[in-house]
């Protein structure tokens, strides 16, 4: 389905990013695994991808740092000869009530989760314009649509990603670069495993499908958006949340 394509997934050493990287590889794409902190985990994702019979390598870069990102993109294009699919997945949380949130906590989250998407998108656009084709898939969050107490920084960034997705989609449509966002709800990852039993129960009560999603549920939608099957979809935000927000 994606044979011969090349992809870069930011923040793919674990969680949803890892599942996306593996899913794209299963479809035949060569996948670069970006990480910022966990080199060992990134390496094991690379090895899992290589076992699927496609090329992979890990590349360290802070997505909010333009110089590091440019270097990363260059490396991907050098190794794979093209860059067809960018998945902006890298994200962090620094949860706190608004009244207690430090300026630094706000800035860190905006930098990685929102500015990072801008920086990476800008850096791949040149290559995709030359190719006259490309797919950019931004990982937003359902809380970017609904709001969520304790996550003013995260929600602001994720809502920002949806706006950025729409504008990028409009600017690049004429060059056959399709840009969409996904908004996962509660997905079983390290981020949600940190919740207490009570928080978990409260969450499940809000989800019509009454269960957490798996990283693979998210990865399969990304695979669809990256494929020829999604040729007529751009600027959209697809909720993957068990019906939590409609």
């Amino acid at each position, binding site marked *: 389905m994606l044979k011969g394509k090349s992809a870069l997934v930011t923040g793919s050493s674990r969680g949803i990013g890892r599942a996306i990287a593996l899913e794209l590889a299963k479809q035949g794409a060569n996948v670069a695994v970006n990480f910022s902190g966990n080199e060992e985990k990134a390496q094991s994702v690379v090895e899992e991808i290589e076992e699927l019979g496609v090329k992979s390598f890990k590349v360290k870069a802070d997505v909010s740092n333009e110089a590091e990102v440019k270097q990363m993109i260059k490396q991907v294009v050098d190794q794979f000869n093209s860059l067809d699919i960018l998945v902006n997945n890298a994200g962090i949380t620094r949860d706190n009530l608004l009244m207690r949130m430090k300026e630094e906590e706000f800035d860190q989250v905006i930098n990685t989760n929102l500015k990072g998407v801008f920086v990476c998108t800008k850096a791949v656009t*040149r290559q995709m*314009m*030359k190719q006259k084709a490309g797919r950019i898939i931004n990982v937003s969050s359902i809380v970017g649509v609904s709001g969520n107490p304790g996550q003013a920084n995260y929600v602001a960034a994720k809502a920002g990603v949806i706006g950025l997705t729409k504008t990028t989609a409009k*600017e690049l449509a*004429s*060059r056959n670069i399709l840009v969409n966002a996904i908004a996962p709800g509660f997905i079983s990852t390290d981020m949600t495993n940190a919740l207490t039993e009570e928080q978990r129960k409260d969450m499940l009560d809000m989800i019509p499908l009454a269960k957490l999603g798996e990283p693979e549920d998210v990865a399969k939608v990304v695979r669809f958006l990256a494929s020829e099957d999604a040729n007529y979809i751009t600027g959209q935000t697809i909720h993957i949340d068990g019906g939590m927000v409609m």
Partner: protein
Amino acid sequence: MMADVFDRVKTIIIDRLDVEEEKVTMEASFKDDLDADSLDVVELVMELEDEFDMEIADEEAEKINTVGDAVNYINSLQ
């Protein structure tokens, strides 16, 4: 040298913007005379960077409005 740069720039413009050769003069404005939109200009600048193996900073690229602006800028660096 001057003519050489102009010819190379002209070839790229004709190819990229699909315009008639006579329209591509030093005075021609990309947007007003050659029907280019802002994204076309960004793309042209990218191609010029590749053709002449140079990097044009965003601040400089924003000043390029006419074919002559592009030719003169390239000449000033060579």
